[in-house]
C-alpha cells in the first residue's frame, strides 16, 4: 500500500474533546499522523485538500463493542464487510468481543482477526480476549499471551461467569497484567428463557421476560468483587435505571469502574417490540421509558463514559422466525453517530459531549492512545455533517447485516470522510 499522503482538511469545525478544542481549524496530516492544526507548517505541501466547510472534524469514532462475525460467522458478515461499514460510519477503531468461533482464547485467533483487519485496511480492530477458555466460565485463559497478541482488554462477551470464585480469580489475574475486564452483567439463571424486558409488554405478549434484577444482581456481585480485588472493570451495555444508579454510587466511592450503553438503548423501549418485531429482539433488552431517561441522564453526566453500537449483523434467516427463536441484536454501526447526534438534537447532550462519548471516552476505557486530534496524534479522523438528514434503507446500509429497527427512520448527521492513519478509507460522493 502506498504511503499515506499529505492531506489538509480545511474549513471544518474541529472538535477534539480530549484537548478541549472547538473552533475552525485546519488539520494537516503527514506520515499517518497529525502534523499540525491551524496554519500549515513551513514546507508542508498537501497532496490533497479536503474542504470540510460546514462540517465537523473530530477524532475517528471508537466503538467498544462490534461483532464482525469472523471467524465462524461468515454467513452473517466478515471483517472486510463490517470494517467497510465502520469506515462509512466514521468508526476507526472497533473492539470485537471474544465470542467468535473459535473463541478468542488463544493468541492465534486474536492474530487472525487483527491480521485480517489489517489486510482489509479500513478500521483498527482490537480483539477482546476471552476471560475464560471457551467462554465456559471454568478455567481462566492465558491472558498474558492474549495481551501480547493484541488483546487490549479481557471480556466474557454475553456469557455470565456463574462461578463466583472463577470471576474473582479472573479479575485478579487480569489486573496482574493491567488488563481491564469487560463484563456484561446478566445473571444466567434470572435471564432464563427471557427474550425481552420483563414488564407490561411482555405480560401482554406472553413473551418470557428478562427481569431488571438479571442485570442488577450480576452488577452488584461484580461491583463487590471489583472492590475486593481492585480490578479495573468496565460494564458493557447497561440497560436499566437502577444499574446506572449503582454504577454512579460505586464511582463516587472511588471504584475503578466504567460503563457504556448501546446507542439504541437510548432510543428504543419495550413498546418497540410492538407486534413481535424481531428486529427489536435484543440482549440486553430495551426496557421502560424511565430506564431510557435514566441512562440518557447518566450519559449526560459522564457516569456512562461511552456510547457503543453493539453491532450484531445477521443474515436474513436469523430474524425470520417466531420472536423467541430469532437471534438477538441490531446491525448498528451505521446508526451509532446519527443516534448519538439525535441526543444532541433532543437537548440531552452538547455536541462536544456527544463526540466525547464516541471518542475520548471509549478510547480511555480501552487504554489506547486514540480518540484525540493533537499534533502527533494518529490521524484517525471523522468528518461529518451534523445536520444532514437522511433515511436509513437497505440500499444505504453498507453492513452485510440489514437487521435494524431503524430502517425507514429519518436520521440526522452523516459521515463524509473517514481517515484511518492518515489514509482516506471512506469518502461520500459530492455533497
Amino acid at each position, binding site marked *: 500500500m502506498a504511503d499515506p499522503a499529505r492531506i489538509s482538511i480545511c474549513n471544518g469545525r474541529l472538535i477534539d474533546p480530549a484537548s478541549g478544542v472547538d473552533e475552525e481549524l485546519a488539520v494537516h496530516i503527514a506520515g499517518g499522523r497529525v502534523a499540525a492544526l491551524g496554519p500549515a507548517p513551513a514546507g508542508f505541501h498537501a497532496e490533497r485538500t479536503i474542504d470540510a466547510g460546514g462540517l465537523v472534524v473530530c477524532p475517528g469514532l471508537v466503538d467498544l463493542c462490534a461483532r464482525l462475525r469472523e471467524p465462524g460467522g461468515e454467513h452473517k458478515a466478515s471483517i472486510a464487510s463490517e470494517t467497510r461499514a465502520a469506515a462509512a460510519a466514521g468508526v476507526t477503531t472497533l473492539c470485537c468481543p471474544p465470542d467468535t468461533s473459535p473463541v478468542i482464547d488463544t493468541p492465534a485467533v486474536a492474530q487472525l482477526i487483527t491480521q485480517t483487519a489489517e489486510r482489509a485496511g479500513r478500521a483498527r480492530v482490537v480483539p477482546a480476549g476471552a476471560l475464560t477458555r471457551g467462554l465456559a466460565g471454568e478455567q481462566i485463559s492465558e491472558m498474558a499471551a492474549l495481551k501480547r497478541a493484541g488483546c487490549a482488554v479481557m471480556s466474557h462477551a454475553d456469557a455470565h461467569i456463574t462461578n463466583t470464585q472463577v470471576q474473582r480469580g479472573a479479575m485478579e489475574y487480569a489486573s496482574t497484567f493491567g488488563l481491564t475486564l469487560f463484563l456484561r452483567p446478566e445473571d444466567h439463571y434470572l435471564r432464563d428463557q427471557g427474550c425481552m424486558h*420483563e*414488564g*407490561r*409488554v*411482555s*405480560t*401482554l*405478549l*406472553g*413473551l*418470557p*421476560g428478562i*427481569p431488571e434484577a438479571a442485570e442488577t444482581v450480576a452488577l452488584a456481585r461484580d461491583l463487590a468483587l471489583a472492590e475486593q480485588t481492585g480490578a479495573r472493570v468496565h460494564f458493557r451495555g447497561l440497560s436499566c435505571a437502577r444499574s446506572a444508579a449503582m454504577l454512579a454510587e460505586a464511582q463516587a466511592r472511588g471504584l475503578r469502574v466504567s460503563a457504556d450503553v448501546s446507542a439504541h438503548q437510548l432510543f428504543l423501549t419495550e*413498546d418497540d*417490540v*410492538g*407486534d*413481535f418485531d424481531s428486529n427489536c429482539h435484543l440482549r440486553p433488552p430495551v426496557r421502560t421509558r424511565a430506564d431510557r431517561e435514566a441512562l440518557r441522564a447518566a450519559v449526560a453526566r459522564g457516569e456512562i463514559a461511552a456510547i457503543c453500537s453493539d453491532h450484531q449483523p445477521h443474515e436474513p*434467516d*436469523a*430474524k*425470520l*422466525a*417466531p*420472536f*423467541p*427463536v*430469532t437471534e438477538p441484536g441490531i446491525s448498528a454501526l451505521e446508526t451509532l453517530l446519527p443516534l448519538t447526534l439525535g441526543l444532541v438534537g433532543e437537548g440531552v447532550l452538547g455536541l462536544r459531549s456527544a463526540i466525547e462519548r464516541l471518542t475520548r471516552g471509549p478510547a480511555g476505557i480501552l487504554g489506547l492512545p486514540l480518540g484525540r486530534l493533537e499534533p502527533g496524534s494518529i490521524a484517525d479522523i471523522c468528518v461529518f455533517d451534523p445536520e444532514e438528514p437522511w433515511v436509513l434503507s437497505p440500499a444505504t446500509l453498507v453492513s452485510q447485516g440489514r437487521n435494524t429497527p431503524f430502517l425507514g427512520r429519518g436520521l440526522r448527521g452523516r459521515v463524509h470522510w473517514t481517515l484511518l492513519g492518515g489514509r482516506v478509507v471512506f469518502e461520500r460522493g459530492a455533497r
Partner: protein
Amino acid sequence: MTTSAVQLDAEGNLRHFLTLDGLSRTLLTEMLDRTEGFLSVARQAVKKVPLCRGKIVANLFFETSTRTRTTFELAAKRLSADVLNLNISTSATAKGETLLDTLRNLEAMHVDMFVVRHADSGAAHFIAAHADPHVAVINAGDGRHSHPTQGMLDMFTIRQHKGDFTHLCVAIVGDVLHSRVARSELSALRTLGAGEVRIIAPRTLIPVHAEALGARVFHDLREGVRDADVVIMLRLQRERMRGALLPSEHEYFQLFGLTEERLATAKPDAIVMHPGPINRGVEMDSQVADGPRSVILEQVSNGIAVRMAVMSMCIGTQNLRAAGQADG
C-alpha cells in the same frame, strides 16, 4: 402497540385471527352472534353448511393437541371445507427457514387457510406476516401469548349463561403467567366490558404487570371467588412443579384447588369453566368438575361453533377480496 392491525383488512373485516387484542367490541359481538347461528348446525340431520365449500384448510400443529385440532377439523368439515392435518414436531422446525419452507410448500398446494398451533409466542403473527396475501391464518395457540378461539368460546359460554357482561364478576384461577388462554380471556373481558375481573394464584404464577391485563390480583381462593358469577380454572402443567414455581401438587390443591366447599363464597348460580383437559385433584376435584355448576362440556361443543364462526368470517373476507379483484 399490539394493535395487531395485520389481522384486519382496510375495511375492518377479519383477515386473520391472531389475537383478541385490538379487536372491537362490535366485532367480538358479531362473532358471538354468528356462533349462535352455527350452534344449530350440530342438531341438523345433515351437519353441514356450504360456506367454505371448495376451500382447503390446513391444520398446522407444531405442538401436539387432540381436542383443539379435532374441533377445528370438525368446524372446517361442517363448513364443507377440505381439511389437511399436519403434525410437525417443533424440533424439526427450530429454524425459521424451515417454518417458512413449510408454509411455502402448503401455499403451493393452494391452501386457503392455516390453523396454526406453535410453542413460541408470536408464531401466528410471524406466519401471517409472511404468508401469501390470499391465505388466512387462524391462531390455535401460540406459546404463552394467545389462544383467541378458546377465549371466544369461553365468552360465548359465559354469554349463554349470564347474558350481559357489564355486571359480571369473573375469577380466573391458576397459572396466568404461562397461560395463553388466560391472556385471551382477559383481553376479551376487557373489550366486552366485564364488571370485575380477578386473577387468583400464588405470586410465582402471576405476570409482573398484572394490572396491564385489567385484573385484580388475589392470593386467597376463597376471597378471590367471593361473589363471583364465573369461575374459570386454568390448566396447570405438571412441569410447573419443578424448580421455583410451585412446591408440590399437594400444596397447590390445598390452596388453589377448587372444591364445593371453597366454591361456597361464589354466587349461588356461579358457573365453573375449564379449558381442559382437567387434572382432577390438582386444579379441581371431580365433584366440582362433574357437578351442576360445571359447564366444561358445553365449552367443548361451543368450541366447534365458535371456530365455524371465525373460519367463515375469514373466508368471507377472502371472498370479498377476490370479488373486489374480479371487479377491478
